[in-house]
């Protein structure tokens, strides 16, 4: 770790090439400046200049903190990308893409580049809880990584079980040291659900056998920003699927600090890096929706941004895997596509080196960025109407149960009708019998 304390001095007074306005070199406390309005979805701030100033002074301060000199900054850029054979040009293209994905105006593009650079030096802890490491794998193992993935590979990870060099006691010492040394500054990313059953004993990690619950709580307390990556960390995901024997929950349920959720299975690297970059820019969480997801990535419903939507509207559906409709890329609604129930940006910031997403590949969405998707979005390959309804003691779809009730009601009404007919006939007969007689009995009954 080259993050000494003396860097502040060396970088003092340096003019940073990318900033287009002069900004103060005074080191101001970041925590003071996070209380400004930041709303990229509408109009960024009441006073855009002020927002820009805040961002610039933040970036300058961070560069002073994490880099030795301007040369160090430039070299870091080059090292990161030449190591992965990405040209500067490709990187600039990518920053432009990320800037627009974050819904920021182009004036922010150079700042996004600076933030991405700073990101590679920011202390970083990546915890794995109950999970399949799918997010880690997806970020680390791409054949042709995009800048987003490169940045994730290059961040100065202080603790990440799958890639760190130290092991055993050393590894844990490293984690504790980072927590202490970079209190309030380090980025904490958690992957996987946290089992809370049996006081967390369903998951113990490391040489000391601490529970995942303890570790997350302790690391979350002093983190600068807390990010839950993947559905499991965000909402419990598959470990928390019914009947959830381990009592697994999402990260936000075990800490009372704000958690930014980046759900999906696996999460899109662009969404993680974008959120981290935005955090570097503004020092706080971006705007979140009611489920804790960054609005810039999760404000659109897949169904509304799907290129097969035209076929949905036209009543053209795939009815069987591999049928003619499938070949013509008809809508997958009847093959169980959960796009109408799912908010994510897969159709825009695509997966696999920005190349594809489920509907393009011919399979419906399974709703992996929504809470409890394993319970609520199943069966994955059948339309929602084939899902079982959640009424205790009833194991049926809404239609089956509805038809059964309707049948029961019909039988009831028919029985009542027959009863009425028979009874009336009997009454009439009695009346005929009684006709002429003094009929006091009937009257008394009233």
């Amino acid at each position, binding site marked *: 770790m080259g993050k000494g304390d003396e860097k502040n001095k060396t970088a003092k007074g340096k003019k940073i090439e990318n900033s287009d306005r002069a900004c103060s070199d005074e080191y101001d406390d970041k925590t003071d400046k996070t209380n400004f309005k930041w709303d990229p979805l509408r109009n960024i701030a009441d006073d855009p200049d002020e927002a820009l100033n805040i961002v610039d002074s933040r970036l300058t301060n961070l560069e002073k903190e994490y880099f030795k000199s301007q040369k160090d900054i430039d070299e870091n850029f080059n090292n990161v990308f030449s190591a992965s054979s990405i040209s500067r040009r490709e990187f600039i293209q990518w920053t432009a893409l990320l800037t627009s994905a974050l819904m920021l105006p182009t004036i922010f593009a150079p700042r996004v580049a600076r933030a991405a650079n700073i990101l590679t030096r920011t202390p970083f802890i990546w915890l794995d809880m109950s999970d399949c490491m799918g997010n880690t794998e997806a970020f680390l193992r791409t054949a042709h990584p995009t800048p987003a993935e490169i940045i994730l590979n290059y961040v100065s990870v202080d603790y990440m079980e799958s890639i760190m060099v130290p092991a055993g006691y050393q590894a844990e010492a490293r984690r504790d040291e980072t927590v202490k040394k970079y209190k309030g500054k380090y980025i904490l990313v958690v992957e996987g659900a946290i089992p809370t059953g049996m006081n967390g004993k369903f998951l113990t990690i490391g040489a000391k056998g601490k529970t995942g619950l303890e570790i997350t709580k302790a690391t979350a307390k002093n983190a600068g920003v807390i990010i839950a990556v993947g559905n499991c960390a965000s909402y419990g995901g598959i470990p928390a699927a019914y009947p959830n024997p381990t009592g697994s929950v999402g990260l936000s349920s075990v800490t009372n600090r704000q958690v930014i959720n980046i759900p999906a299975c696996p999460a899109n690297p662009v969404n993680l890096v974008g959120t981290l970059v935005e955090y570097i820019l503004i020092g706080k969480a971006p705007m979140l929706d009611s489920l804790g997801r960054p609005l810039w990535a999760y404000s659109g419903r897949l169904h509304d941004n799907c290129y097969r939507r*035209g076929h949905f509207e036209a009543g053209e559906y795939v009815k*069987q895997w591999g049928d003619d409709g499938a070949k013509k890329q008809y809508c997958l609604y*009847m093959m169980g596509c959960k796009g109408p129930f799912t908010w994510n940006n897969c159709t825009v910031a695509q997966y696999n080196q920005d190349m594809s997403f489920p509907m393009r590949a011919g399979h419906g969405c399974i709703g992996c960025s929504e809470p409890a998707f394993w*319970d609520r979005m199943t069966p994955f390959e059948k339309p929602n109407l084939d899902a079982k309804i959640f009424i205790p003691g009833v194991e049926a779809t809404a239609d089956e149960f*509805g038809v059964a009730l309707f049948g029961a009601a019909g039988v009831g009404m028919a029985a009542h009708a027959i009863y009425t007919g028979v009874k009336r006939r009997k009454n009439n007969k009695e009346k005929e019998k009684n006709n002429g007689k003094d009929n006091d009995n009937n009257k008394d009954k009233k």
Partner: protein
Amino acid sequence: MGNINSSGNDSDLKVVHRMTVIKRIIHWTLFLSIINQIITGMYIAYPFLIFGKTPTQADSPVSGVLNSGETYQAFIMTWMREFHFIGAVLIDVSFFAWLYLAFFSTKEPLYKSFLPFGNKINEMYKMIKHYFTLKNKPETGKYQDPLNAIIFTFFHLLLLLQMATGFQMYVASFTGTSAVGAWWPAMLHICTDWTLWVFGGLTGVTLTHLFITWLIIIFIFYHIYIEVWRSIVWKEGDILIPFGGYKYSRDNLKEDDTD
């Protein structure tokens, strides 16, 4: 069998006013729009007509009976959803008109019969008993009988749930603003977001919407059955209420006719 002319003079057969013009308009608007909602809703849930079908798809019996050719010529789902939303607007307006009239109608406010206080509960049980014994018909009063009133109220609660779940699905495609301004989706979110928590996400909301559809279908059949039953058994012309606004009362003729 009693018969009007043979059992006393005409003035004994009282005419009872039951539905004002506005209520009748509401009734038939609801009728038409709910039938429309059921047909279009079922199509949205399971698109049984497939346009632009392909040869393989035509092999199955449920596949398209209509083939309109090119994609751009067929917008059947668009039309189904469009009509579903038009029906939804009619239902909303009717619902709130009904709600207003239930309390502030000068002629026949519903609350007089449905608020379950005092002898209302008792009268309700009397009516149920009458359904199963055909004896002791409760008197035809000035207002709706409490049993009907309570069932109609329950039905309107179903409509309210249908509106809440429906608008939750509707607001799903908004991203914070709309053609008429940001207040519209914001208002819908405030009014209907609770359904997400109660019914378990948007899929649960959709299933609830679908299930309530079945409850409404059951109500319709029960409702028509019981009104026809009353017309036959009571011979007071109950079925005429939503057409002419009146029914008859035979309570004065009771001595002769005790069906």
